[in-house]
């Protein structure tokens, strides 16, 4: 036993005794002594959590050039110093022995072999150039991630759209946030929320739907729960197809059959207007009622809504009419209502409509533009907002979330990038599902995309309807940059070892429009490199070093150059970050919320409100905003400053239960595991808590099928199947099953089952609803495998 440990023991024993007998410890005991149990680091480096869209501020503890601890940043305005189980354990997987540390090239025998960076990059450039020459500029695509830094996404986007002239740029936010984006664009005119998390602390009524906030955004849930604890008068309404822990704090619980929530939202709107609880003045001044083409009167809208009377809706879904009416009254009369939602509304074949209907409720009740009132879409990933949506790294977008189809936007970006007029293609590229459908082998004329660069995401596990897309990934030329072997690296022709966030630094922009900078804390292991360096090296080899000049080895310098380039392009847009210089972001403990047009601007709490939103005074906008307008939706396509109350129809899910597939299946995350589990499942504490995926089922359903706890079942959809142990829980609703998405084991990868039917407008797939059947195959088996793909040459036989 060394002195340090002995001293710690004595101190611990003394403290215990002191507390028990009520004797204060002496000054010598109280004098801070090293190794008193506080985390021992050389320094703490400011940054952001790697995981969800909350954007928790962190400090990264570095000792002897390794990350050894994490702690929350108490001055961060998102989390106030708290972290969830995932964020607090990041250091526990950073140095896992499975880390990719050398480039790998697949040889003739199908084995991945170590290679130098030069060899790997030269091969990539050669293949890309070859494909572009033989098959056209759009034969080489990029698929990025809401987990790349903003600087990285911006760089890849610039290279593809400004260098190759190709809009074949997509990212995994297509699979999670596209419906929210399209919802904001169609309802409000501009992407991303008007308000911020601060509205939690002043709202009087919180409507939570399509979100298991307690597990998917636990630190925001904590914030909500604290508010409820301090102010029990806050009304919380939860509308969900599973009775998760989130509903524990609900004053009103609205259960729904999956896909029928649109009817409930319509019904709430009808009740509000029928009872005269709507805000007539607000509707008249700041909204129009439209179906996207024509406008309608309030009477016409009310007549349309009358089919969604609460009693009628209660017959089509399990939500009681009384509850719908109560929800409507609270929503309308609270004085300040806030709604939050996430994948439950977005990952749907009618995701855009679902988003529109929530915005409708806020518009008809005037719940915008004041503290505590907002329709706030929770973002799933840490940088879907900042990195992909705001930089325009999707196939139809340009930086500032503008459209490639817009000639003025193209001209402005071409000028800012100093490239030839007409370089940017006006035709949008394919969405993600289309992209992976079009990917294939050189000699397959039906597959126009021959190569794809996949960065910081795992589509071979996360794409829905895997049986359809896995053969394409196997056939195409895949370049994959990641930190661990994954299902996707199993198909890669070139694997590039990537630096982790704290090994390179960069900006993440979270759900509430807040950009926060992570400083580089440590060097990456082995030969791993930052994605921005990889992008710049490919650009250099393909003749685009002028476009992407930030190709040095210092990742923070490269980041700063890329960031400065980006904010220059968007400086005159309503998403401006021109005032968020890198210097400011480095100094700030809390990040900066756009719009932020100048260095002395503090950032924006609430958009569309004069005095709070600097866009009211920005050239290009101020001329069009009436001087007496205190609120104005300045991105209204019609130039009237109005938002759109969408008169949508009703449609359920693309696939609903029938005799053959009698159950609804929904999917999602658990609090301990992130996405496909490649990081979190390598933390022993987390892997122990969730060693495998399972099927959650209601006791009534289990009993009808003769299932006991832990029995093994096959869950089958029209697309594929899983073999899983059963978990019988009261939180499930009868007829609705749940499988978490984090298991890397093929038999338990839920995306073999999930539906790739997409929303017609957003092209986001309906992960949340599939129809399945269950077959019992035996009693309990030990499947607590804590399975990770460790061997890069392990084959994916599907």
């Amino acid at each position, binding site marked *: 036993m060394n002195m340090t440990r002995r001293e710690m023991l004595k101190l611990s024993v003394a403290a215990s005794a*002191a507390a028990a007998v009520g004797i204060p410890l002496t000054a010598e005991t109280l004098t801070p002594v090293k190794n008193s149990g506080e985390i021992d680091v050389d320094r703490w480096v400011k940054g952001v959590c790697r995981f969800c869209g909350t954007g928790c501020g962190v400090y990264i503890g570095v000792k002897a050039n390794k990350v050894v601890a994490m702690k929350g940043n108490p001055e961060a305005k998102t989390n106030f110093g708290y972290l969830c189980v995932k964020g607090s354990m990041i250091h526990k997987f950073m140095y896992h022995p499975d880390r990719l540390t050398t480039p790998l090239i697949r040889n003739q025998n199908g084995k991945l072999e170590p290679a130098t960076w030069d060899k790997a990059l030269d091969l990539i450039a050669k293949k890309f150039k070859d494909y572009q020459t033989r098959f056209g500029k759009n034969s080489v695509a990029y698929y990025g991630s809401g987990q790349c830094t903003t600087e990285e996404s911006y760089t890849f986007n610039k290279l593809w759209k400004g260098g190759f002239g190709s809009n074949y740029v997509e990212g995994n936010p297509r699979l999670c946030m596209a419906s929210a984006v399209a919802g904001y664009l169609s309802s409000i005119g501009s992407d991303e929320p008007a308000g911020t998390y601060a509205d939690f602390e002043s709202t009087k009524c919180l409507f939570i739907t399509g979100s298991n906030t307690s597990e998917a955004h636990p630190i925001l849930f904590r914030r909500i729960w604290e508010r409820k604890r301090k102010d029990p008068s806050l009304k919380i309404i939860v509308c969900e197809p599973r009775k998760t822990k989130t509903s524990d704090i609900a004053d009103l619980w609205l259960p729904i059959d999956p896909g029928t929530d649109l009817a409930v939202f319509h019904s709430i709107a009808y009740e509000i207007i029928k009872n005269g609880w709507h805000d007539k003045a607000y509707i008249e001044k700041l909204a129009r009622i439209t179906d996207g083409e024509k406008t309608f009167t309030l009477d016409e809208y009310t007549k349309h809504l009358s089919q969604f009377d609460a009693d009628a809706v209660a017959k089509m879904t399990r939500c009681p009419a009384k509850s719908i009416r109560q929800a409507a009254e609270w929503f309308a009369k609270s004085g300040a209502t806030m709604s939050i939602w996430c994948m439950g509304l977005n990952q749907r074949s009618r995701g855009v409509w679902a988003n529109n209907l929530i915005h409708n409720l806020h518009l008809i009740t005037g719940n915008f533009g004041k503290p505590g009132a907002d329709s706030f879409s929770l973002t799933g990933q840490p940088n879907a907002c900042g990195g992909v949506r705001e930089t325009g790294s999707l196939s139809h977008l340009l930086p500032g979330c503008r459209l490639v189809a817009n000639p003025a936007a193209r001209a402005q970006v071409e000028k800012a990038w100093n490239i030839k007029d007409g370089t940017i293609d006006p035709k949008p590229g394919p969405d993600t599902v289309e992209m992976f459908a079009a990917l294939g082998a050189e000699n397959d004329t039906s597959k126009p995309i021959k190569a794809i660069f996949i960065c910081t995401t795992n589509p071979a596990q996360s794409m829905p309807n895997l049986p359809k897309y896995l053969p394409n990934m196997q056939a195409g030329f895949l370049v994959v940059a990641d930190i661990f072997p994954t299902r996707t690296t199993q198909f890669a022709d070139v694997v590039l070892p990537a630096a982790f966030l704290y090994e390179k630094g960069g900006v993440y922009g979270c759900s509430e429009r807040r950009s926060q900078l992570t400083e580089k804390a440590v060097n990456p292991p082995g030969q791993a490199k930052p994605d921005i360096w990889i992008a710049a090296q490919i650009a250099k080899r393909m003749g685009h070093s002028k476009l992407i000049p930030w190709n040095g080895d210092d990742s923070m310098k490269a980041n700063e150059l890329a960031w400065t380039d980006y904010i220059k392009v968007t400086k005159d847009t309503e998403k401006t970050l021109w005032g968020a210089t890198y210097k400011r972001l480095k100094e700030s403990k809390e990040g900066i919320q756009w719009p932020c047009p100048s260095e002395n601007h503090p950032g924006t709490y609430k958009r569309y409100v004069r005095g709070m939103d600097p866009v009211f005074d920005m050239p290009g906008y101020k001329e069009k905003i009436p001087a007496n307008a205190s609120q104005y939706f300045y991105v209204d396509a019609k130039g009237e400053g109005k938002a759109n109350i969408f008169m949508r129809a009703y449609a359920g899910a693309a696939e609903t239960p029938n005799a053959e597939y009698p159950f609804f299946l929904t999917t999602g995350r658990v609090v301990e595991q992130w996405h496909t589990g490649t990081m979190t499942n390598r933390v022993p504490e987390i892997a122990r808590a969730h060693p495998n995926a399972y099927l959650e089922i209601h006791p009534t359903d289990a009993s009808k099928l003769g299932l006991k706890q832990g029995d093994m079942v096959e869950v089958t959809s029209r697309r594929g199947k899983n073999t899983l142990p059963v978990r019988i829980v009261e939180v499930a609703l009868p007829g609705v099953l749940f499988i978490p998405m984090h298991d890397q084991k093929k038999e338990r990868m839920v995306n073999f089952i999930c539906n790739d039917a997409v929303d017609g407008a957003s092209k986001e797939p309906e992960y949340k609803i599939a129809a399945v059947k269950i077959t019992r195959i035996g009693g309990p088996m030990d499947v607590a495998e804590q399975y990770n793909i460790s061997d890069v040459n392990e084959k994916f036989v599907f």
Partner: protein
Amino acid sequence: MKIVAILCFTTLLFAAAAYASGEHPMDMEKTECIICHSNKDVVSKPEVVKEWNQSRHSYTGVGCGNCHGDENNFQEKPLKNACESCHSMQVAETKGNVQCSGCHAVHTFTVHRKMR
């Protein structure tokens, strides 16, 4: 009058060799902590799981592993570094070597343990 009395009060703490090296005293295999620790036939204080379930930690997914580690880095009585990741301000204000659990009763984590 001098009375020297040696009495054993509460908590006779036997630390086996396993504790000394940061290993859980028995092989955990792949079992979740709460399976054994809620079973009175296996552990002496199964009520800790119930206590934890009543705490704020259980609401936000702060489970056993957060504070106690896993099999190979097990901490029977976590020091304040376990609390520091989320409560860094409070830990910084804690006087010297007093541990958080000295005053904040595990596992319910009410604000203050009853002081005599």
